[in-house]
């Protein structure tokens, strides 16, 4: 009996082999998806697009003010109730989170860096040009009413 045959006699060996083969297939498929250049690089086309994305993220979110990153990778929106929504590119789509704390907001010239309480969502730095300072000031004002 060779080593492989001995391995097959071990409990769970069949499952381990099946898992290994499946892992190989998974990596091969992921490689193929990359090789075929699948995926997209969507950008926020403007304020109207950001409005639509905000409404999609929170049904009925009616953005009263919006600022879009210069490269279109993200946007920040505020509604009449003072809710702040952060929108960012996620793969071939967009994802959004409501900003419930200002702890993760930093201003650096024309760049506004924002992170939400959801660590999985990550941090995003938006190039908002001159609007960065305006939004930072606006967020500071709103911050007083945040928990």
């Amino acid at each position: 009996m060779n080593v492989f045959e001995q391995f097959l006699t071990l409990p769970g060996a069949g499952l381990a082999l099946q898992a290994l083969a499946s892992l190989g297939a998974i990596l091969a498929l992921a490689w193929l998806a990359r090789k075929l250049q699948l995926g997209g690089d969507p950008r926020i086309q403007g304020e109207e697009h950001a409005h639509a994305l905000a409404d999609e993220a929170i049904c009925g979110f009616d953005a009263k003010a919006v600022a879009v990153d210069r490269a279109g990778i993200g946007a920040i929106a505020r509604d009449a109730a003072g809710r702040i929504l952060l929108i960012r590119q996620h793969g071939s789509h967009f994802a959004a989170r409501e900003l419930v704390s200002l702890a993760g907001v930093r201003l650096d010239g024309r760049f506004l860096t924002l992170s939400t309480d959801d660590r999985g969502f990550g941090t995003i730095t938006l190039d908002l040009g001159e609007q960065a300072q305006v939004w930072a000031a606006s967020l500071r004002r709103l911050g007083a009413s945040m928990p």
Partner: protein
Amino acid sequence: MSSSDIAALDIVTYAIPAFVLLVIAEMIWATRRAPEKYEPRDTLTSLALGLGSTIAGALSAGIVLAAAMWLYEHRVFTMPNVWWAWIACFVLDDLNYYWFHRTGHRVRWFWASHVNHHTSQHYNLSTALRQTWTGFLALSFIFRIWPAFLGFHPLMILTVGGANLVYQFWIHTEAVGRMPRWFEAVFNTPSHHRVHHATNALYLDRNYAGALIVWDRLFGTFQRERDDLPIRYGIVKQLGSFNLLHAVFHEWRGMVADIWRAPWRHKLSYLLRPPGWSHDGSREGSDAIRARWLEKHAVTNQVSE
């Protein structure tokens, strides 16, 4: 009927090579027609979830089978190993799947496990393999094994359950438009299941069927796919991450955090009420989102075709 009379067929394992080939075929279709239908990182997460789910399922299969065998030993009838019993078992299992699936969307405890399948913003064949790792922990199998008490052999139940899972693979695609009218009326199809995976308000918590769409028509949860409503996929609060462990455990973690923070009299509600429920009304569930959308759009939505 003893277990020696019946041979369980591990249909899912045999189907894996076909799954791989069909995913490749769909990727080639996407390359030519719509490259954004696939996202390599999303595909990798989906497939890794599929592998983990298979391993988790294999590790817990013994306990599930033992529980089903115990029920079978206390059965009230004995179903023979004949063709009509297999069909009856499949239909009953599909009905059980409908209720398991509906509960999986309407009770947060079960949703914490099932949400994994819905976290992709894509809808392709790799999404079909995006399965939970925590189904056993959620005790979801209880919905499927009780026919053993009626007298269906556990191996028969496992086999038809596998066939149901394999059937559901092909409906996770945008490459297929609509099937013939008679087929759409009876079976779950890519069109019906696209609605199920949608986050559009009108489509939330609709079309729970496994193989037969008749259950949704019967129990009032059917929603036809509308050509004038482009579908967005995923969950109401999109995951925004390709992290595998975050995908697996995010809802469990969120649920535990909610229970921890909630006043004592509301703790159980975070376990048993629908996802999106909150004791202070600070969040919205699918019913409220859907109702508000319908009111805004004044839609006269036909439940049946």
